[in-house]
């Protein structure tokens, strides 16, 4: 456990020290929130959503922030590989499983903080969080998204030689995961073939879970969503740990 904590601690130190990255990675979600939220608030009516379109997409943008930060934290392993720091950890008398868990927890923590900042900022844009238990439910889903997608990033980083493939992963994996998740639109309004696609997207359950927590309504049963997302998290951590164990330096 002390080793997991050590790796986690390094992640936290690096995160807190990179002010420009914190602000930089808030940029895109905030931009989405402002442009889509205010821009479409008066024209889009979503049945069942009490707080308008703004209230509807806040959970989506929060998950977006958590998703991007966590994948990015996982992929950072490539930098450690390229700049040699990974060797320092791998030659120490610790198991790779501990290193991987530490990295996953670290990534999930930074992702949660980023998501939380968006959530806090959206309070100033008219979001009302009424219940504390609801907020806790949303937090649980944010943590799960953070854990699963950091592990996902680690899995990808274990297979990649350098950052060249990063853009590819962003455009063909991460954006589709975000786009299909129902972060920006209600999945009930989709044609059935597209709807089944969104139900295959693990992020959908995260978005709906956060939405349930924040607004009390969702289109997927939150308990079912929790089970699916927790299962996906376990699966991703196992895959990430397996691939990380095989890294050659």
């Amino acid at each position, binding site marked *: 456990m*002390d*080793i997991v904590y*050590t790796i986690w*601690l*390094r992640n936290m*130190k*690096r995160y807190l*020290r*990179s002010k420009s990255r914190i602000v930089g990675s808030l940029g895109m979600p905030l931009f989405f929130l402002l442009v889509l939220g205010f821009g479409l608030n008066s024209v889009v009516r979503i049945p069942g959503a009490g707080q308008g379109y703004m209230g509807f997409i806040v959970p989506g943008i929060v998950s977006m922030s958590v998703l991007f930060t966590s994948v990015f934290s996982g992929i950072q392993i490539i930098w450690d590989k390229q*700049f*040699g*720091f990974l*060797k*320092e*950890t*791998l*030659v*120490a*008398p*610790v198991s790779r499983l501990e290193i991987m868990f530490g990295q996953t927890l670290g990534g999930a923590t930074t992702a949660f903080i980023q998501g939380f900042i968006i959530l806090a900022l959206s309070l100033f844009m008219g979001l009302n969080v009424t219940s504390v238990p609801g907020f806790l439910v949303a937090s649980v889903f944010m943590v799960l998204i953070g854990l699963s997608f950091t592990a996902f990033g680690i899995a990808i980083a274990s297979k990649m*030689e350098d950052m060249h493939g990063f853009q590819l992963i962003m455009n063909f994996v991460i954006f589709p995961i975000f786009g299909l998740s129902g972060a920006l639109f209600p999945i009930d309004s989709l044609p059935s073939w597209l709807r089944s696609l969104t139900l295959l997207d693990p992020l959908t359950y995260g978005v709906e879970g956060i939405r349930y927590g924040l607004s009390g309504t969702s289109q997927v049963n939150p308990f079912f969503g929790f089970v699916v997302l927790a299962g996906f998290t376990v699966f991703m951590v196992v895959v990430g740990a397996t691939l990380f164990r095989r890294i*050659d*330096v």
Partner: protein
Amino acid sequence: MFAIEVENLTKNFNGFVAVDNVSFSIESGEIFGLLGPNGAGKTTTISMLATLLRPTSGSALVNGFELTKRDDDIRKSIGIVFQDQSLDEELTAYENMDFHGRLYRISKTVRQQKIVELLKLVELEEKKNDIVKTFSGGMRRRLEIARGLLHEPKVLFLDEPTLGLDPQTRNHIWEYIENLNKEKGITIILTTHYMDEADRLCDRVAIMDKGKLIASETPEKLKEEIGGDVITITSSEREELYAKLKTLSWVKHVEPHDGFVTINLENAERHVAEIANLSATNGIEIDSISIRKPTLEDVFLHFTGRTIREGEASSKDHMRMIHRMGRR
């Protein structure tokens, strides 16, 4: 007692044999040098001994622990400074050390005390709260050496410890290495392609070329083995000179290089006038003549037929090959 015993160690990267049936042993308390051009297999050998790479075949004992069977015990008992930098640039010097100490499960009080002590040793105590990003190459190297010593290893691996450093810093680092060995009795294994470095530091050297170990002895013995002296002649007409020198009976070996010719022979003092006369009668202009005792550079030339620079050019192609194969 041996710190390291290696028997028939081999590493095969998809058909490319980077380390080929290498056997050697290193005594406790020695400074042992692995010498050779880039791509000779030095780093691969060290990576295997440090448990980072699995050998294809062969066996090794590191501090008495068998490689691949007791890797965790080996890891606890060795320190390593990699050829490429392996610091976290966004952390401070102290934090890099602290991270290392935690990884090796050193208790907090011991850790704090040792970090300060070691940073003092490498003269970085005043910089301990500076971010590593701001450090020069030499400072980073020193910090890495200090870090490698934090868990009190019995054996310290140094992979090209002075690569890319200026002469002053190199001297400085050599002093550290010598002191560590003398005062703390740490066995040191270093790889280098600087022959002067090996000559100055190492009790024994092993010369590696193209994955094979071609000699393993004290630098003195190796130099004795070639015997005699080396004459270096600088001349613009080296081809003609080479042709003439080749026919002389007392010349043991002659080798043309870029702008100069080297001659191996016994009793150089007696023959140097003869060479001057020979060139004068043949109208060959000589810019300079120097006589010296052989260096490890000459030893390398003797064993491989190439200077270490020439060796590097050809091994770079190998490296490229490995790289391509790795991508497949």
